[in-house]
């Protein structure tokens, strides 16, 4: 390569580095709100190891399109900014700061991942940016509570409580094993289940953890078989769930399986588990895909119109569910939209129900709901609802004391 080209390349790099710094924007007092628009931000991995959950952000996007199509809120259209952070906390931090200080968004909705969310939680609260409904289950969001953060994603301890109750009361089963993914989410489910069983004087048959990178789960399956519990409850990702079902079926272990709400995307689970998902009893945090509630019908129709290529999966329309309370609060604010008004409007939300559970926030209540319903898989498209919405009164602080 001759000298000239090397020079050009070097200059290109230099300008690449310098240019973004020049784009300095003034941020006014009413950040992100004009008379005709309101800016909403969201982060969610569209690539990388957790990209499977990236559908949530796209679902919220669909919902905002629907709202805009119907005329917006108090004359304002919603501008929605999705940022792909690849599930890396450092990128989330960079992008959220860019959205708040550079673009000037009014509030955040959704936001996927515990580590990614925790990297910006303090920052958002310090800068009075409302953050409504993180789309990952974590006890960090509302224990302790912070003023600008609202959440209703059911914790894995909630699921543990309700699934165990269902198994003991309705299925009359008494021996349980837990198969959980070794991170804050899975471990909370495991600890909660253990705690609940101990209080009842029962002992957990076996708790088997799986690392995120593991591919071969034969020793895990063998351990579960050895413990031979009647029921195995899972807090894992879809890949591991399908592997363990296959492995256990291969070695002839067929307990009643139960799964957390993160595995509630039945269509895909049924497919990748090669039909073993049948008879699975699983927690749900949102309506079933074929539900005929009027809201779901409406969303499905718009889905056909705006994003026909997108699969109508649970995590896609869960994005709608996470954004519903926010839109409700925006509507309550009407013309007079400021951060403080918005927070007040959020706090005044009572028994609001979209396609998720009933949600109630309050001045000292940031966890809007703790509810799931339980369903059973009949076929790849049909689920049988076993219960209505259930609410857990389990106090997660009992577990958090053990962890911390």
């Amino acid at each position, binding site marked *: 390569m001759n000298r000239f080209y090397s020079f050009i390349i070097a200059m290109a790099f230099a300008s*690449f580095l310098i240019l*973004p710094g020049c784009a300095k924007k003034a941020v006014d007092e009413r950040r992100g709100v004009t008379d005709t628009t309101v800016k909403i931000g969201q982060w969610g991995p*569209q690539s990388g190891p957790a990209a499977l959950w990236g559908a949530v952000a796209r679902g919220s996007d669909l919902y905002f399109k629907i709202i805009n199509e119907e005329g917006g809120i108090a004359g304002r259209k919603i501008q929605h900014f999705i940022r792909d952070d690849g599930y*890396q906390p450092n990128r989330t931090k960079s992008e959220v700061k860019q959205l708040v*200080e*550079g673009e000037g968004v009014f509030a955040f909705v959704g936001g996927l991942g515990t580590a990614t969310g925790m990297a910006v939680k303090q920052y958002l609260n310090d800068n009075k940016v409302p953050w409504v409904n993180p789309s990952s289950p974590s006890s960090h969001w509302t224990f302790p509570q912070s003023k600008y953060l609202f959440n209703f994603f059911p914790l894995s301890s909630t699921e543990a409580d309700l699934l165990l109750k269902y198994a003991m009361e309705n299925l009359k089963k008494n021996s349980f094993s837990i198969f959980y993914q070794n991170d804050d989410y899975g471990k909370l489910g495991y600890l909660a289940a253990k705690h609940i069983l101990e209080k009842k004087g029962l002992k957990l048959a076996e708790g088997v953890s799986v690392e995120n990178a593991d591919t071969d789960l034969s020793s895990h399956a063998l351990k579960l078989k050895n413990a031979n519990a009647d029921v195995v409850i899972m807090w894992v990702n879809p890949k591991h769930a399908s592997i363990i079902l296959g492995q256990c079926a291969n070695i002839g272990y067929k307990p009643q399986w139960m799964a957390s709400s993160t595995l509630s995307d039945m269509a895909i689970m049924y497919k990748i588990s090669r039909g073993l998902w049948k008879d699975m009893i699983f927690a749900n945090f949102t309506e079933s895909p074929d539900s005929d509630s009027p809201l779901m019908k409406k969303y499905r129709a718009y889905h056909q119109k705006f994003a026909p290529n997108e699969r109508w999966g649970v995590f896609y329309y869960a994005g709608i569910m996470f954004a519903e309370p926010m839109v409700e609060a925006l509507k309550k604010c009407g013309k007079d939209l400021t951060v403080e008004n918005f927070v007040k409007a959020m706090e005044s939300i009572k028994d609001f129900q979209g396609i998720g559970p009933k949600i109630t926030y309050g001045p000292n209540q940031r966890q809007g709901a703790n509810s799931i319903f339980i369903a059973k898989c009949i076929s790849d498209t049909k689920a049988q609802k076993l219960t209505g919405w259930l609410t857990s009164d389990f106090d997660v602080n009992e577990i958090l004391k053990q962890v911390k």
Partner: protein
Amino acid sequence: MDIKRDYYEDIRLLGSGAKRFWFGVMMLALAVTPFLLPGHVLSDVNFIAINVIVAIGLNILVGFTGQVSLGHAGFFAIGAYATVLLMSAAQFVPFPLALLAAGLIAALFGFVLGLPSLKLEGPYLAIATLGFGMAITQIIGRFSVFGGRDGIQVPEVHYLDRLFVEYAGMTASAAKAADLYFIIIVFAVAMTIMARNIIKTRVGRAFIAIRDDDIAAQSMGVHVTLYKTLSFAVSAFFTGVAGGLYAIWLGYINPESFGFIMSVLFLAMVVVGGVGSIMGSVLGAIVISFLDLNLKQNTIVQIPVLGNVLVMFTDAVMDTNGIAYVSYIIFGLIMMLIVVFEPLGLFGFWIRIKKYWKTWPF
């Protein structure tokens, strides 16, 4: 390049007047940067400066001593956790002290990891370091002393942010970023000079001798055992300090954040920048971490022409939501092409540019 006539000229930090001048200009530029950039860009600069420290530390090991490491995310994690635990468990420890202590703890682990390097090399050493990196995050995740899998929130550190708000008219978040910037940049500059000095002294020459040929070095009287482990320790110290700064910058740490890919990125910074060159490490860290932060779906789509082509192509042939993955392709291509066209990395480009302008009209 000027010809150096004696040893003392070689080890002098700022040899000529011109060098002193440019050093002054650079320091000035670094000092005024936070007052020119908006807060969120400054925050990215902070992240890049942290990576500069890691890249320099890793280059001491990889570039100057010739040992491979795929486990530097482990040292980064040790530094981060040690800093946070020292600060929150022992309340009285001020942040800079905690940071240095964390660096020393990482150095101790570096010394231990250096022991296998006495016998292993090449891929064998790579596997040993890789195992180390994995083990560290597993162990941290296992014990609740370290916050377990739940991670821990990092206490805030601030010194000057009030002043920035009052006198420089910054917003609160920009002032915080500026405050952190000065902490990080002081460490980055100090450690760059430190690395440069280590390389220019007896220790550095021993490292280089080991890299070029450890048997020959030994027969010349270099204590290979000592210097190999020392190199690991020094490298780990740099990485540990950077880890502590990263924890403060990010505000929350959990074991999953320090994975294999992070170690790969560190190695990429060193090699893309230029193996065995401190200036190169600085360049490499800047470019790689800049790309890491900025190559993403919304920036790719906005590239003129190419962005539209990619979107159309994606709609026609690829997965509807797959376009975010193009960032990986571009990242990999840039990484590869730099090394393919210039094995000396960005430092090689720098040398060419310098030569070109030195003889410019001719």
